């Protein structure tokens, strides 16, 4: 026989529970991106494949290839940094959402979003240190990369990775990528993997699941 709930008690318990601090999900395995900053030619095929797959109008860009150039002749440099959502171990966007539209998958750590639940308060957009949540002006909602979760569940790779003609973008278990133990064409035999490149917000903020092969001028001292 089902015990009848004391709704007053439930309400008090619920209020106590929801005013607690947020505890991040600890996934069984964490997927992450790896990008080779040196060999990327900046063709933006990944950006376009992403926009195509997600039906994005001009404006929101889930993935972005950033051209970083500088120096003084003859010591000049140019390299690309390519980032989308970093599917952080402890995402800042997730706890800000008032409707629970953002969640982290326990099985592979993907930070997914159901934008049909979004009320457009834009708190997640502000909280993300890496600019991942994107504002859709027409719909007045936030959308973001979900690592093509449907492709992942079908055993394939995300559209951006599949579109990369230079094979400088890939995904894999992030722990193995950081340890250099994951076989990928994005990382050469003598390349050293880093977790942060110059001008990127500190990875200590949310522990982003991303690895880079950095340019010599993009290394963080």
């Amino acid at each position, binding site marked *: 026989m089902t015990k009848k709930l004391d709704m007053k008690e439930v309400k008090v318990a619920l209020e106590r529970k929801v005013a607690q601090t947020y505890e991040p999900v600890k996934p069984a395995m964490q997927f992450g991106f790896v990008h080779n900053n040196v060999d990327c030619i900046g063709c933006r095929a990944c950006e376009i494949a992403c926009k195509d797959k997600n039906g994005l109008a001009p404006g929101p860009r889930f993935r972005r290839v950033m051209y970083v150039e500088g120096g003084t002749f003859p010591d000049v440099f140019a390299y690309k940094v390519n980032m989308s959502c970093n599917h952080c171990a402890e995402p800042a966007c997730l706890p800000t*959402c008032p*409707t629970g539209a953002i969640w982290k998958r326990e099985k592979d750590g993907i930070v997914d979003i159901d934008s049909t639940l979004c009320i457009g308060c834009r708190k997640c957009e502000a909280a993300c*240190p890496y600019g991942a949540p994107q504002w859709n002006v027409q719909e007045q909602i936030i959308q973001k990369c979900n690592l093509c979760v449907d492709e992942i569940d079908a055993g394939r790779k995300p559209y951006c990775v599949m579109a990369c003609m230079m094979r400088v973008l890939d995904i894999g278990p992030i722990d193995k990528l950081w340890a250099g133990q994951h076989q990928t064409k994005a990382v050469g035999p003598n390349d050293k993997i880093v977790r942060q490149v*110059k001008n990127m*917000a500190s990875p200590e903020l949310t522990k982003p699941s991303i690895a880079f092969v950095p340019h010599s001028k993009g290394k963080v001292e």
Partner: protein
Amino acid sequence: MATSPVLRSRWPTPKAVAVDAENGGKLLRATYSPLHFKPAIESASDAQCLACHKEVLEDKPRVASPAGVKAADSLAWYQRTSTYSGDQDTFHRRHLTTPLAKKLMNLKCNTCHQGHDPREEAPGSSATAAPQSDNAFTLRKQVNPETTCLKCHGQMPAKEIMGLPGPWHEVKEMFQNDCLTCHAAIRTKRHQVTYLNAEAIEAMAVAGKESKTADDVCYGCHGGRSWYRIAYPYARNAWPGMGDITPEWALQRPQHSESRFLKAEPKP
């Protein structure tokens, strides 16, 4: 919400630029206004910013999500504290226009937005750009969360610095759920920066003590909305009578707040 979509994107679309050219190039002139660059942005008023970016404060959240989730019925866990009031609102309005924000804070557009060349993806990318050491913005962000958001949305280092036996939410009952149990006497000169209203914050904390909700008042910023997993390294201003030896945890910390946030000393 019927503002120009042209100004909503970070970079004008080709179509917008073409339309703009027919109208005398006002948009491009506005994009490259000195107000978007240092040093003019440092003294820009909110009114000057909002003359073009008025949608920042005019836009409100949707009444309901596309699937029908009503904004009025949705409250996050951090929105159920005693200090939270009012309807769901946007990030910018919550920080600038709500009664609590106006009462406790003195945030301005340029508190967070310090400007940069709109062509640049990273500091130091052109001869006229800010140097690469400039930390006003980061890749994909127009602000640097480490020097802005983290001030109020970092972790509270309860164990490491204050020596509490555990995280605040686990041990707060031991301290009557009240930060002022200790902080009525320890580090009494607080919040003395231009972007906060120190007197209002202190008065609210005292009022919270009387209504037994002081925890909500302080913890709202000091750990209760910690989107980030590290603590902000607040400047360690030694208080009168404090010993000369700097503790280990404070060795890497500045001795005073950033100069742009320092309050002018009252004249005798």
